[in-house]
Structures are given as C-alpha cells and as structure tokens.
C-alpha cells in the first residue's frame, strides 16, 4: 500500500516536473524591434502604471487633465491609468514581468530601469523610435542617462527631482542655532537642539536615497566610475566619515530612531511641521503634502549641508518605459511623446513634478517658487549607480548603516562589511 501510494505520488510529482523542465529552455531575449515612428494613426487602448501620489494633486491632474487632452488629440484611443503605491510598484512590476502581464507603459523609478532592461522586458526606445534623439535632446543629461543600460536607452525621462534641506525655523530659533550649512554646523547644533527636547535632523531610513547625499557631500563615493568595485570608495575615509556623522548625531539624540526604519516613529513631515524635527532632507513633493495637512506651518528650504565636498544631493525621478509585452506599442510611443510635450510637462509641474525639459527650466520657478532650491541643487545632484544589482546594494547599505548607527559596529567595520557584500554583486552585474 505504501509502495503504491509513494509511486503514485512520485508520478504525480514527477510529471509536472518533466513538463516544467520542458518549459525552461528559454527562447532568449526578444530582439525584434518594432518601428515606432511619430505621426502614425493610433487607435485602441493602453494601460499605464504609475505611482503618482494620491495625497496631492498629481493623480487628479493626470486623470482629469493630461490623459483627457491626449485622448482628445487622438480620437479613438483610450489610456487606462492604474495608480500603484510607490512601495508596491517594484514588486508588482517584477511579478508582472514573471507572469508576462506587464502593462503597455510604465512610469518607472529611474533606479529600476537597468534592472528591468536587464530582464529583457523593455523596448529599446533609441532603436524603436526614429525620433528618439530629438526627444532626448530636449531633456537634461542627468535624467536621460538613467535610461541607459549597456548600449541602449530603454526609456525617456519624465520627471526629475532631488532632495534639499527643509527646516522649521521656529525649532532652530528655539535652540538658538542657525540653518546648518556644513557638517560642522550639524555637529555644533546637535546638543543645543537636543536640549530643547527636539531632534536636529530626521531621516526616515538608512538606504542609499538617505545616506548617499552625506557621503557625496563629504567628498566620498560609492563605487568607481565604471561601477566595478566599491572597495576604497564606500569604505574610504570620506564615506566612513559621513556615516560617522549620522552615528554621532544619533548618539547625541539629535537624530531620531526613525533612521532604523520599520515604522514606529513620528513621520518626517509631521515631525517637521510640529517642530519635533528641526530639519529633514526631502523632495519637492513635500510641499503639496505639507501644505495640505499642516496649513499653519511655513516650510523653508536650504541646500544639503556639506562636509569636505560640495553640497551634493541625490537625483530622483521617473522615466517612461514601454514594455515588450505591449500589444499596442504605436499608441504607447505616441503617449510617451505626449507626456514629454511642454503641455503635459507644464500640467504635471503644477501638480508638483519638476519638468525634465530644458526649455521649461525658467518656468519652473514661476510655477512654484519652492522649486528654486531644487533647481539649484540639481546642478550638482548625482544619480545612484545604475546597475541591475541596485536593489540588493541598497538593502546592504541600509543594513550596514543601521548596524553602525545602533552601535553594533564602528562605521568603518560596517562599511568594510558592506563592500565585502557588494563587490561580488558588481562583478556579476
């Protein structure tokens, strides 16, 4: 009986295994590239995944202004927008890639493009769109570069941003300190602000997005130029010193436990508005959200504080990519062109998204005075290393910085350990 049962089980298990094995031969990446010239007659519908925030006016502008305008200009077309929370978009894209159910167009965080391109699910736009160069020329070089993986461009920049220091003047005044411009200012102000019961500076996490500006602004770096090794860069003296700044501020109770992540602390916007956090470092989307929630609070901006280097923040932003899975790539390409038009870029700029078009750079400050600081900071801001291994590297940086901040190891030990984990990934990448 047991014999028979086990052989039946083996058959039941073995058959699908064989079937599954047949399916894994792999047909290789699709290399056929459909031509997507401009001005074609387009019809039908496409799906567009994005993570525009629902908290501010972004989603309403997209759905009630931008997309209807496109559909009006191209009768017989329909663009179906799907709002995905930013935190879930990466996972959703990966799952959809595995299940071959990606939408036609995605507004992807700039850091995911190399990874998605490496998976072979994106259309190389520089090969598919004859007018790619014309479109690309209008945009800033930095954001455009984030679309490049190996020898092709897999997307077009849609919006760009960076982080600057946002501060609560009252909280700084209360402690009798000025706006910190340098790391030395931060160290000097830390005990004074801590005495008032507030924190000098809050960071909501310890990943690359948070930590890299400190490293760069101290003259440190993450990897060499070709992104082949982090040894001597991430664990170099300047980078380690920057991490030590965060460790010291944490020990002086000038940086809240929020940096350990996991949730549990007062979030940065709320803390800044009520004075609990005197400063935070964040992007332009903070303005509509804080204006909406904390009407009495007047937020001020300053450049990212710096150490031995120049004040350097991190480039964020989103690119538009077209997937290989799209069955209506012509319409997808046309929609991408429209999203890069001055009309659409201006509309989204009103909603809090800085345009990537050089021709609109003067208009940005007119639309929103608070953009000025960001436009200045963008001049020196740097992108995170474009490598498909970035999500993994990001997690390693987060963990090692948290270990250093908690005092489990010194900043030097933590960064040495990070390098030991990151370099094998770069070799493979």
């Amino acid at each position, binding site marked *: 009986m047991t014999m028979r049962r086990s052989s039946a089980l083996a058959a*039941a*298990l*073995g058959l*699908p*295994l064989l079937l*599954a*094995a047949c*399916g*894994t*031969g*792999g*047909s*290789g*990446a*699709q290399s056929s590239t459909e031509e997507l010239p401009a001005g074609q007659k387009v019809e039908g519908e496409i799906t567009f995944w994005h993570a525009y925030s629902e908290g501010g006016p972004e989603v309403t502008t997209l759905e009630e202004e931008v997309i209807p305008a496109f559909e009006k200009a191209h009768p017989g077309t329909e663009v179906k927008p799907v709002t995905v929370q930013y935190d879930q978009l*990466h*996972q959703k894209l*990966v*799952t959809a*890639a*595995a299940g*071959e159910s990606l939408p036609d167009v995605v507004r992807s965080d700039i850091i995911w493009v190399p*990874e998605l391109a490496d*998976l*072979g*699910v994106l259309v190389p736009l520089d090969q598919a769109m004859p007018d790619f160069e014309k479109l690309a020329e209008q945009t800033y070089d930095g954001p455009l570069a984030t679309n490049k993986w190996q020898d092709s461009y897999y997307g077009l920049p849609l919006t760009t941003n960076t982080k600057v220091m946002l501060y609560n003047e009252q909280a700084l005044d209360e402690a009798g300190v000025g706006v910190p411009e340098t790391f030395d200012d931060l160290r000097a102000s830390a005990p004074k602000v801590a005495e008032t019961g507030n924190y000098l500076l809050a960071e909501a996490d310890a990943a690359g997005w948070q930590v890299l500006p400190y490293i760069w602004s101290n003259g440190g770096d993450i990897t060499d130029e070709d992104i082949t090794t982090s040894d001597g860069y991430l664990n170099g003296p300047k980078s380690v010193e920057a991490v030590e700044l965060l460790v010291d501020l944490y020990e002086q109770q000038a940086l809240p*436990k*929020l940096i*350990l*992540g*996991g*949730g*549990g*602390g*007062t979030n940065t916007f709320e803390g800044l508005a009520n004075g*609990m956090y005197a400063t935070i470092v964040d992007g332009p989307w903070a303005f509509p959200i804080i204006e909406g929630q904390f009407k009495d609070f007047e937020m001020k901006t300053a450049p990212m504080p710096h150490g031995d280097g120049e004040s350097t923040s991190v480039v964020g932003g989103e690119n538009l990519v077209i997937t290989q899975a799209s069955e209506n790539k012509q319409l997808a390409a046309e929609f991408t062109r429209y999203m890069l038009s001055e009309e659409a870029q201006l509309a989204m700029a009103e909603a809090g998204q800085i345009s990537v078009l050089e021709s609109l750079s003067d208009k940005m400050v007119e639309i929103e005075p608070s953009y000025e600081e960001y436009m200045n900071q963008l001049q020196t801001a740097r992108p995170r290393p474009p490598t498909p291994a970035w*999500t*993994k590297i990001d*997690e390693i940086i*987060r*963990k*090692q910085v*948290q*270990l250093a901040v*908690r005092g*489990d190891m010194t900043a030097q030990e933590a960064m040495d350990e990070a390098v030991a984990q990151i370099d094998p990934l770069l070799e493979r990448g």
Partner: protein
Amino acid sequence: MAATATTTGPASPEVAAPAPAPRDSRKRRRESLTAYVFLLPGFALFCLIVAYPLARSFQISLYDWAVVPTQASRFIGLENYARGLADEQFWLSMANAGVYLLVTVPGQLVIGLALAVLLDAKMPARGLFRVLFYVPVITSWVVVALVFKYLFNTDAGVVNWLLVDVLHVADANIAWLQSRWPGLMAVSILGVWKGVGWAMVIFLAALTGVRDDLKEAAALDGAGAWDRFVHVSLPAIRKTLLFVTVLLVIGGFNVFISVLLMTGGGPAGSTEVPLTYMYRQAFDFLDFGYAAALSFLLAIVIMLVSYSQFRLFGGDEKEVD
C-alpha cells in the same frame, strides 16, 4: 446492496457459476471506475494547487532562476541549498521564528484553553463572548497588523502612553518596532491576540465531547473542579491538545504579514522571520531560486519539529479514549 456483499468474498470465482462471474467483475470495475471519477476533481485540484507548485518550486530551487520566461535559467544543482545552510541571516530569521513560537504557542494554548473552560460552563451571554473572542481570528491580518503598528508607535502609541504616562513602569518611550526583542514581542502579542479565539473554539468543541458521567463520577469521589479538569477533562482532550499544538507550531513558523507590516524585518534585519526573508529574496532581489531553496529548508525544519511532536506526545493514543 446485497451484491456488494458478494464482491467481498475472496473465493467467489471458484464457487460462483460461470455466468455471473464476468458480470460481477465488470460491475466491480465499473464501480471502482465510478469511485475514481468521483476522486478525480479532488485529485486534479490537489495536483493543480499543491503538487504542481511544490514540484515546480523544487525545480526552481535547483536553478539560478531567471524571473522572465524569455530568459534562460542556469542549472546550479544544490548550490542554493548550500548557500542557505551557510546564510547567517536565514538562521537568525529561524531563531526569531523560534522566539515567536516560544511566546505564541504556550500563550495561545493556555489562554485558549482557559477561555474554553470558562465559556464551556453555563454562564450568561456566553454565546456573545464566544463570538467576541473569535472575532480577531476572522479579521484581516493586514488590518490588525496596521492597527498594532499604531498601538506600538514609539512617539504616539497607546502602549507607550500606558507604560510611561499612566502606569509609570517605563521612564522613556520604548522603541518597540525599532529594536529586536521589543519588536518580536509586539509581533508575538499580536499573534497571541489574533490566534487565541481559534484555539478556544477547537478546545470548546473537544470539551463539549467530554462525558458528563465521568465528571460526575469524579465529583462523587470528592474531586474538586481543578482535579476534575486535570484528571478527567485534560486527558480526554489530549489528542486535541496535540493537534492544536502541532498546527500552532506550523502556523508560528509561517508568521509573515505581521512582521512585514510592523517591523519590515528591521532594523538591520534583526526581526526578520523566514517568510519575510524569503519574500525579500524573491520579490526584492528577484532571486527566486534561492527563495525556493530556503522554503524547502524551512519545510524540512517544520517536518522534523512536527514529527518529533507526534513521537513525543502522540505515542500511546489508545490508552485514552
């Protein structure tokens, strides 16, 4: 119906007349065929949702798996398993699951049993209480995990408010979700609160089945309420105890949503449990092969633990009945 009786006779071919024999066996074949047809939907379902995914993920665990079907995966044999065995973070996540088990299994057993005994007795509104204690079981994990995240918030949470401002047991706010032991404790408290109703219902059903005459006999012999519980009820529901324990242990190893939403496995991975770690490998790092291998390592551990539970506590089933 009478015909079925003859089919069980082993000697029927010799005794029976030549004519009915083939009809009989044809009938038997038809009957067993009918049985198989009835089994088919269940078996097909089993293959579809259990056997196939199981075999498929075992296959994935042997590859450096490419997520996208159009890319080729590389066969690497048991490399993923070797990597898992040497992965300190994975074993830390197993240890964290162990801590979770140590708190939640006894917690749910004891509280669940106590509630079951209380609500087994005749008392007013016991139906209402049974429902109330069961409500957490049927609420969404996501919702209650988010609620607990607010309760255990460092600066504005109710728990810290109670401990610091009301009871004065702590001097400063505890960073519940931003450190390892408090984080695991918060997650475990949620686990007990959410699971206790389930244990209670199972125990309640078992207690209802304990024969009243046994309890009465014990009472006549002068046994008090406690003695009747320990010497009559408890031995009678022994199998249920084992059943509940085994399922709670398996469930404890599979703790996921609460950790993912409350601590995210942080800080620095210190509250990671096996499922969150696996999830991260698969969906953040796209390392599906490694995640699949870890899931089999976890399955082996769970099987060993469950087996030893049966061996240790389930040995002499026949004595109790």
